[in-house]
């Protein structure tokens, strides 16, 4: 009988190429097992072989997500593997993200089962736990020995299409999938038992946790406004005349960053509003009603604030999905950080 074929993904460090100095290495493919793959190979036994090991530097992967994924896929595909394993990444953040990304791509493009492993605080866990089976590991490579049998057990089940049981039984991180089962007692009885415990102040674990309420803790205040660089962000739909980037008047799918360098105030000759949620007449006449550039310039001169960023960030708030707005924020905060912005004034109509 032919052996089941596995392709294994590891990073620069585990391939022996080196640490930070090798993190920029491009994807490579090696026949057979190497590094942690040797322990996996031994555990899986003689019915399995590690046909190839693919390697990529963590930084190269992180900076070239799409290219790296495509290159790796083209290296993996010819081996026609039955199973793909990445990592485990333990607590290495960039490695974790790389493992998750490549696993997801392999599963989607090649349609084969995939497995990875991480320490539960690895940032890759939250990004991929819903999509992948992520085996729970310790936070360092010292946990490899304990992780190996879990990889073997789950890998075999995946290859043979057997039922994957709960996370605690199998040793992977909870994916958040709700699965039915028959309890020993009916729901009303279980509820009453929980209520009695709750009334006694005892522990009463819920069978169904509420979603996490996404709140962000308030940041510490600005302590030195006179030396702080401020940026303006708005959902008021102010854009340069002609709306060059075609930001929608409602249900926006994009945002824009536009220069205010050298301007003393928002001039109606330069700017307009595309916001579809309010009577635009006043703002069309005076865009400072949404972007208070005139007064901020005064304050800049007076030394009340340190400096004003020479651009503003804008989108339309009305009808815009919270998911889109969140994505805009995630996208532009990097720029704010890079530009040394110390505080933001966000205006909305």
């Amino acid at each position: 009988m032919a052996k089941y074929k596995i392709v294994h993904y590891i990073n620069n460090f585990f391939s022996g190429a080196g640490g930070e100095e090798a993190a920029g290495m491009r994807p490579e493919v090696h026949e057979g097992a190497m590094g942690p793959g040797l322990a996996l190979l031994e555990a899986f036994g003689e019915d399995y072989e590690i046909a190839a090991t693919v390697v990529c530097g963590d930084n190269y992967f992180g900076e070239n997500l799409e290219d790296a994924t495509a290159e790796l896929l083209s290296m993996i595909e010819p081996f026609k593997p039955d199973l793909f394993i990445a990592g485990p990444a333990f607590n290495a953040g960039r490695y974790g993200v790389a493992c998750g990304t490549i696993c997801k791509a392999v599963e989607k493009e090649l349609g084969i089962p995939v497995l990875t492993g991480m320490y539960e605080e690895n940032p890759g866990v939250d990004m991929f736990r819903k999509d992948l089976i992520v085996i729970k590991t310790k936070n360092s490579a010292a946990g490899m020995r304990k992780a190996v049998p879990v990889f073997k057990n789950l890998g075999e089940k995946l290859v043979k299409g057997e039922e994957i049981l709960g996370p605690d039984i199998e040793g992977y991180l909870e994916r958040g999938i709700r699965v039915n089962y028959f309890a020993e007692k009916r729901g009303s009885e279980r509820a009453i038992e929980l209520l009695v415990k709750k009334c006694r102040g005892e522990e009463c674990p819920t069978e169904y946790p509420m979603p996490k309420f996404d709140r962000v803790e308030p940041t510490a205040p600005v302590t030195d406004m006179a030396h702080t660089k401020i940026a303006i962000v708005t959902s008021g739909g102010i854009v340069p005349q002609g709306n060059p980037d075609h930001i929608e008047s409602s249900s926006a799918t994009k945002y824009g960053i536009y220069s205010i360098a050298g301007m003393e105030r928002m001039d109606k000759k330069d700017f307009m509003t595309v916001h579809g949620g309010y009577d635009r007449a006043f703002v069309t006449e005076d865009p400072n009603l949404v972007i208070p550039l005139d007064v901020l310039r005064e304050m800049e001169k007076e030394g009340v604030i340190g400096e004003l960023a020479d651009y503003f960030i804008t989108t339309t708030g009305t009808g815009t999905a919270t998911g889109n707005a969140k994505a805009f924020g995630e996208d532009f905060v990097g720029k704010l950080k890079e530009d040394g912005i110390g505080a933001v004034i966000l205006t909305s109509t």
Partner: protein
Amino acid sequence: MKLELGKIYIRDVQFAEKTYVKDGTLYVCKEEIEKLVLEDERLTGARVELARPGESVRISPVKDVIEPRVKVEGNGAVFPGVIGKVGQVGEGRTHALVGATVITCGKIVGFQEGVIDMSGPTAKYTPFSQTNNVCVVIEPADGLETHDYEAAGRMAGLKTAVYVAEAAKNLVPDEIVTYETKPLLEQIAQYPDLPKIGYVHMLQSQGLLHDTYYYGVDAKKFIPTIMYPTEIMDGAIVSGNCVAPCDKVTTYHHLNNPVIEDLYQHHGKDLNFVGVILTNENVFLADKERHSDMVAKLAKYLGLDGLLITEEGYGNPDTDLMMNCKKVTQAGVKVVIITDEFPGRDGKSYSLADAVPEADTMVSCGQGNLIVHFPPMDKLIGTMDYVESQIGGYAGCMNEDGSFDAELQIIIASTIANGFNKLAARTY
């Protein structure tokens, strides 16, 4: 208020010349039931069929399920204000044909009617695969308006149940269970050291196909009130709705409310069951705010230490559920919620349409989006014409051999959110 429930166990159902019970078998007269049902000129067809546990039988689309019960001693009659005269119930003695039901089915009223399989892999999801069912297949008059058809179907089931239950009136029950709740002050004094526990029973009340009746009063028109738990056992609450089949609280489930039954089991042992607060699930947000305020007020007024909340339906009622939970918790009363889940096909989405942090203790009755396979059955009671459009079904889900695939939510009471079943869900 004290009620003796005389249980007569039914292990088989057969047709006969007249309706009676002998040695655990319910004999029913088909002709008399059909005649009774057809007294309503809104219905032009009525056919009685029997379905027993283990038979290769499928019943669909099911409107309501009712346990036959009859008042033997004490005030009033079952289903007061609907079949019986308006009058206080919940005291004296009532006989029940346990293990028998009346099921109404037939041409669809709405899309929210479901399936019962008496055997096969899906039978385990519904309690009615274990009961001996007298099925009344009804046919509406041509052009009958939807509201009228719903009402006619509802009455047909209740009338049949009352008719069948007459057979239990003069029998000696196999078992008598006594339930008692005293007036509030006495009840609290009876077990002063035990936590005082109540139950908030939320009734579906959104409009056509979404109504419930308390002593005949349309639940969307009442304000939250207090009920003795035994009232419900005499049919004070009647289902007039077809929410999603899986979480439909049939009249059978009102008569046999599991929370009330189990609270009585614990009564005097580790808790003091004080009473039931009835409330509704209206579409008006002002009603929701007002009624959840009132629920919290009543909970506080009754001096409760803790309470359970159950809902019926998905979406709109989730908001009532969460408002009730939040406000009752803020009033200082401990809450446990019983609910079912709709996490989407991949099982990964949040299951309810609303959420509050106070809902920190919930019991799950399973998730209804799971796809299950229904093999062909030898006999069909009702019609399969609508399977593709029933909730849980989908276009192309029917196969030529009579088998089909559908979401679990197409099965009557499969994930009923009052904890009647053992089905639950956990996170993988």
